[in-house]
């Protein structure tokens, strides 16, 4: 099966600055694919390359198996939803929605039928004659989606479409977007710097950092089996302990940290002596008696969040740690100031090379 969108060693440079560095990936038809990364990592640039506003400096973009070199953005089977929506204020809601069809020469009565159908799809029936500035933020959002869907693109590209909405609406629109995607069945490529958004909606996610795609996988894989230190720290909460690999044998290895030697899964088969970071999720750590655990710390506070309580600790060397406890254990958390020990199962901790990690 040909992939809906394929990037083949795509690099994008602005002068001497590399915004996207050697990106390769395949996105399947009908997939909900997300790019996740911090601000300025090149997400928008990559999306604009797929939609044809930016030519890659190197490499090839293929859509539906077709090389897109020399094909302008108005000729590509993609539709882009802009970060600020970019609805046309000089046109009514319905005219906005069918603008792409008018460009293609569809007659007026036929266009209005399509507009009505799409207004039903986005749950704004009968509102086609409104002006854009008469709509609420969420309604504008849906009109932008309808306008993009009207041209029946093979791929819908969304650039942080929910970032301008408030929290409640954002969560509502997440499920709505997912529902629309299920109904129209086309490929969605979604950009966000919000990991919650990426994890809840996507089939697969590409995590980017400073122009480099760090890892591609579904949410579980990224969370449980990160391949780089950046992914381990960016996706989900985690405790980071830096050091050098002391001994490596089989699946496990031991890292010499400020807390003493700690073992974890040697996911990248590091040799002893190499710089490494040990990542332990807060829910993998358990509180125990001081002296009994592998790590010692002093409790400085705890935050109750209902189903889970986050306990903050300071280790002997001053580094901060977080432990999540729930159920029965949450009621037994000692008072701040108490000395505790921390235990974890080594296979739940992960050791990754620290090279290229600049966010510590």
């Amino acid at each position: 099966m040909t992939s809906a969108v394929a990037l083949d060693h795509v690099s994008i440079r602005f002068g001497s600055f590399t915004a996207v560095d050697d990106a390769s990936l395949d996105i399947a038809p009908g997939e909900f694919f997300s790019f996740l990364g911090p601000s300025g990592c090149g997400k928008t640039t990559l999306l604009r390359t797929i939609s044809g506003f930016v030519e890659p400096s190197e490499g090839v973009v293929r859509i539906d198996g077709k090389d897109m070199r020399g094909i302008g953005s108005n000729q590509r089977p993609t539709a882009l939803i802009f970060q600020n929506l970019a609805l046309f204020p000089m046109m009514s809601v319905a005219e906005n929605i069918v603008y792409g069809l008018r460009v293609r020469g569809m007659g007026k009565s036929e266009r209005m039928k399509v507009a009505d159908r799409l207004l039903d799809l986005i749950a704004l029936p009968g509102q086609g004659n409104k002006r854009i500035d008469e709509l609420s933020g969420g309604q504008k959002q849906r009109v932008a989606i309808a306008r993009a869907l009207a041209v029946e693109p093979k791929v819908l590209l969304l650039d942080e479409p929910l970032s301008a909405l408030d929290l409640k609406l954002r969560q509502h629109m997440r499920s709505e977007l997912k529902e629309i995607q299920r109904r129209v069945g086309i490929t969605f490529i979604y950009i966000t710097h919000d990991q919650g958004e990426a994890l809840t909606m996507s089939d697969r996610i590409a995590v980017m950092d400073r122009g480099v795609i760090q890892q591609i996988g579904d949410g579980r894989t990224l969370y449980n089996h990160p391949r780089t230190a950046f992914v381990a720290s960016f996706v989900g909460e985690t405790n980071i302990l830096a050091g050098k690999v002391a001994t490596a044998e089989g699946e496990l290895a031991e890292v010499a940290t400020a807390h003493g030697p700690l073992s974890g899964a040697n996911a990248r088969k590091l040799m002893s002596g190499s710089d490494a970071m040990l990542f332990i999720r807060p829910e993998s750590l358990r509180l125990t008696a001081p002296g009994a655990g592998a790590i010692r710390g002093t409790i400085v506070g705890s935050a109750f969040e209902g189903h889970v309580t986050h306990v903050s600790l300071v280790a002997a060397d001053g580094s901060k740690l977080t432990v999540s406890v729930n159920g029965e254990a949450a009621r037994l958390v000692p008072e701040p100031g108490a000395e505790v020990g921390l235990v974890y199962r080594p296979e739940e901790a992960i050791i990754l090379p620290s090279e290229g990690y600049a966010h510590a």
Partner: protein
Amino acid sequence: MHSSIGQVVIYVIPAMVLAWFGWLAWRDRRDPANAGRQGFVARNGWPVAGFLVIAVGFWTIFMIVLPLFSMIDLSFRPKLPPPQWGGPKDFYTLDNYRYFLFGSTTSTAAWNVTHLTAFALTILTSIAITALDFVICYPIAYYMAKVARPNRLRLMMLMLIAPYWVNEILRAFAFRILFSSQGIINNVLMASGLIDQPVDFLAADVALYAGLAYAYLLMMMFALYNALDTLDGNLIEAARDLGAPWWHIHAFIAIPHAKPGIASGSTLVFMLTAGSLAAPLVLGGPRSLWFTPIVYDRFYQAFNWQQGAAYALILLVACVVFVLGVLRLFKLGLAEIAR
């Protein structure tokens, strides 16, 4: 001076306007929506408020209202030697307007063909020149507002503005030199072998039209530039992404957005062109008759101020009608073009 109703009107109307402003200010203060807000004087102090009232009042009354009303008054009076002003022969008459339409009472022709033609030509040519200025300015303004980088933009602005540092009459003479039979344009055309006799651009009014089009080009340019500058680049990209070819984006995104700018640029260029004097005097061929030199002649050649006033008012009314027509066409309010 005259002493009649006209005189009374001239002094009563400004007083009424002032009273109206006063009433507006009083009502504004009483408006519950403004309750609790500090008044203008309290916010800005007496010196500022006083200066504003005096400056704006002086300007409107002495520069706009009084001259305009005395012009209107004058235009309905017969030409008389000063001793007879206010005398029994000084009564209101439509003679000056009649003259514009039918010529002197002794003439045999049915219509005052010279003046009517000049008037019609002036209006039509001004419309054509306004359209021409729009066609010239739109691509440049679009380029400056949406394409050019800051450095290039500064250079283009400078190149556009610099020629206008030169006086208007000198600029008209420069066009005369360019288009004269020994001028650069004729020389280039002859040297390239396209023509073998110099073309008389002045007689053909080419120089006049070119000079007029150039005279107020900047008004259109900056009106369009300002309007296009506020167009969100994402709208252009969104249209392109939806498959729009370039002309569609201009016709249905950029130009509708720039509508207020187009309207204000067009009205300015039209008014200034129809009322311009320097270019027609310097560049007009021997036959060409622009309307403003005729008005000028009424005043200073025929010493018939009454008729001159009538002619000037006719031009003014035509211009106002044009402006209202343009606003109607663009479905805009007066306030919008002044943004």
